[in-house]
């Protein structure tokens, strides 16, 4: 081991146990890597390339908790993970999981952040000081005292990061920390990580797909493909070799687009009229007098900060939530009184968290779930299944593989596949790009354009600027449960083919 390396990984391989389909996944294969104290390392690579597995090796979760076969050595802060238990690493390594729900263990924000210091026997005054400093640095002071269950995905992600950093670990490992965080939160987090690295010489390892987020801080890049390191070097060289520069990774701020306010045009597929909705026990409404129309032949992006009401809006489109006042019109007809299942024949909805979208034993059954409910013939299901699997690059996963055994990005693609199998005239998706690398995002964007060109109304709620730059026709901005902006991007023209009038009838 090099004297100055705080992390020394030598010839590390890891294979997950065989699934019921008999498939054993080799996640890491002969990985060797040394990381010095105070380095800022960004790990990237396609979805399912072993990045998250590598992170779990750094604090002993592999081999002590995760079943599977491991070979090679991981030495962190002088301790070999084979000889030291996870607890020994807890003051040294702060690990933030990809899904904040996997990370949070307490009931409210204060208790959550206090958990680590409490377990390490900190003095109560020191714990309070630690919480205060951390929440200030991460800009989440307003979340103090709130129940964790009430927070949005992005807010929970920031609390998870706070709970890992409050103990001032020498090594901070963050698995896709920007995936659900809004623009402002991301900038605060970037500044926070930069100052941690510069002032306290904390070694920071970030697993991230979003180049726009990490471009400015990626001093060293490590790229994984199929469980192997294919690039390990300077960030600038990595970006140069892939022809990525500041202009390509920093999408043009869509507020600067030549834009045109939305008005007129063909009849909308879905209309929201004066929608107001409050969650039970909530003091302020999550949606407040929202008026919106969604059109065919158009990809609409709904954007806004964490907790602005994007997911709540998506959940109104197919009747999962019923508004306190106002009404939702689908093809001009009120949806009130109709079941979600019947509405789903027109509005296909992908909710947040792939884990909740996958409930069948195999990928094949998962894809066939909705068509079976719609009574679609077997041969048609097979045809759609092949098409969707090819479109989303999930054919190689094997139709008999259990969806929950996949990586985050693979799960996300299977969940999207389940939605596309429905072949509905409206597609609504909430944060569909979590876990997807740039290539897959680009592929998904092309796919959405294809659906758009066939007359589908596509509605996407996301923070992902890269993705919206790839395919947005229209941007709707939300803040505090209200619409603050609604405009078309690009040339502001929507091309509607002849025969649009027959659209509603034909679908």
């Amino acid at each position, binding site marked *: 081991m090099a004297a100055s390396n705080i992390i020394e990984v030598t010839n590390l391989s890891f294979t997950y146990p065989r699934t019921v389909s008999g498939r054993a996944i080799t996640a890491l294969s002969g990985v060797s890597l040394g990381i010095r104290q105070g380095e800022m390392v960004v790990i990237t690579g396609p979805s399912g390339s072993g990045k998250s597995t590598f992170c779990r090796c750094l604090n002993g979760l592999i081999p002590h908790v995760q079943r599977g076969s491991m070979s090679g050595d991981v030495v962190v802060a002088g301790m070999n993970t084979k000889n030291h238990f996870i607890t020994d690493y807890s003051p040294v390594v702060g690990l933030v*999981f990809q899904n904040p729900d996997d990370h949070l263990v307490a009931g409210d924000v204060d208790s959550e952040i206090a958990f680590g210091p409490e*377990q390490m026997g900190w003095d109560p005054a020191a714990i309070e000081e630690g919480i205060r400093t951390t929440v200030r640095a991460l800009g989440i002071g307003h979340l103090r005292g709130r129940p964790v269950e009430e927070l949005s995905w992005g807010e929970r992600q920031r609390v998870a990061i706070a709970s890992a950093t409050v103990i001032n670990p020498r090594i901070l490992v963050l698995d896709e920390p920007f995936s659900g965080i809004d623009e402002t939160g991301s900038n605060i987090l970037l500044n926070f990580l930069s100052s941690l690295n510069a002032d306290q010489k904390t070694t920071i390892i970030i697993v991230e797909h979003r180049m726009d987020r990490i471009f400015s801080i990626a001093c060293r890049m490590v790229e994984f493909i199929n469980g192997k390191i294919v690039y390990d070097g300077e960030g600038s060289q990595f970006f140069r070799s892939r022809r990525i520069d500041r202009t390509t990774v920093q999408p043009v701020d869509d507020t600067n687009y030549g834009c045109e306010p939305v008005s007129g045009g063909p009849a909308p597929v879905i209309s929201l009229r004066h929608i107001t909705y409050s969650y039970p026990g909530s003091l302020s409404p999550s949606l407040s007098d929202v008026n919106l129309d969604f059109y065919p032949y158009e990809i609409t992006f709904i954007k806004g900060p964490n907790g602005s009401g994007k997911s709540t809006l998506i959940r109104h489109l197919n009747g999962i939530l019923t508004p306190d006042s106002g009404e939702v019109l689908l093809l001009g007809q009120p949806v009130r009184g109709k079941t979600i*299942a019947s509405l*789903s024949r027109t509005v296909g909805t992908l909710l947040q968290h792939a884990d909740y979208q996958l409930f069948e034993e195999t990928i094949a059954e998962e894809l066939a779930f*909705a068509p079976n409910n719609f009574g679609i013939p077997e041969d048609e299901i097979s045809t759609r299944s092949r098409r969707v699997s090819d479109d989303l690059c999930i054919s190689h996963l094997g139709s008999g593989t259990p969806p929950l055994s996949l990586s985050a990005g693979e799960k996300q693609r299977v969940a999207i596949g389940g939605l596309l199998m429905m072949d509905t005239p409206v597609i609504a998706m909430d944060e569909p790009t979590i876990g997807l690398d740039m290539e897959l995002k680009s592929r998904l964007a092309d796919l959405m354009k294809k659906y758009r060109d066939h007359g589908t109304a596509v509605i996407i709620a996301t923070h992902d600027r890269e993705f919206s730059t790839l395919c947005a026709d229209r941007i709707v901005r939300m803040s505090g449960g209200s619409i603050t902006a609604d405009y078309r991007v690009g040339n502001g023209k929507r091309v509607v083919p002849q025969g649009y009038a027959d659209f509603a009838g034909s679908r």
Partner: protein
Amino acid sequence: MFPFKKRRSALVGFVPGDTWVHMLDPRTKLFAIVVICLATLAVTSPSLMAVPFLFVILLTLVSHLGRHLLRALAAFSPLLAVILILDLFFAAVEPGTLYASVNFGFFTLDFYSGRLLFALAMGLRLLSIAAISLLFIMTTDYSAFVRSLKAMHVPDSISFSLGYALRSTTTMWKDAHHIADSQRSRGLEFDRSVLTKNRNRLMALTVPVAVSVLNRSGKVSESMLSRGYGYSERPTYHNTPEFSMYDAILILSLCNMLMVEYICIIYSG
């Protein structure tokens, strides 16, 4: 429609609030459960049983959780009905006066005054115990509960396990919501009539929820280990639970209630 379509709060789970019942030390609330159980188990007279029952109603009103509690109790109503019917017709107590008799050909149902009073008392007992237990779950934050158990020197493994069980009442409900929403969004009809006719559809929800709960417990334990659980032999507390004036008032009231009931038992022979 499926009962949780309109509103999204858990049937049984923590309901955030700032009433003084919410702010009570969880240990005081545990003490209240024990006292209410004792007070209802010690007597069989409906009039005496009404005392702890009214006490629970008072606590419910103060906590502003009447609607939530009624909704949760409604879910237990079939079980309550079965127990009441069994007590009404088959309880091994002095039957008393025969009020009415209904003949069904092969058997006769007799309504006796003694069994009616006994069934009423049992109903009040069950309602009191169920209501105070639900009130504890609905007003006690998971973290506060764990802290108070640890303050009582309950071993960490037991404190966290009990706390996690309490938290699971909420998270399991939410998981079920998310999964059911997702399934309905993909065309699965979840109307209650369909569920009773087709058990496979109920299984389609039950199995993923069970898998989700198991997965989550595994992930939470990984997170706890990663964040230092077990690192120090003497963990500290950020907020040490403290008894407030409200705790003292409730404990005194509970003791008074027990005393009054004891005096009544003695005087009534």
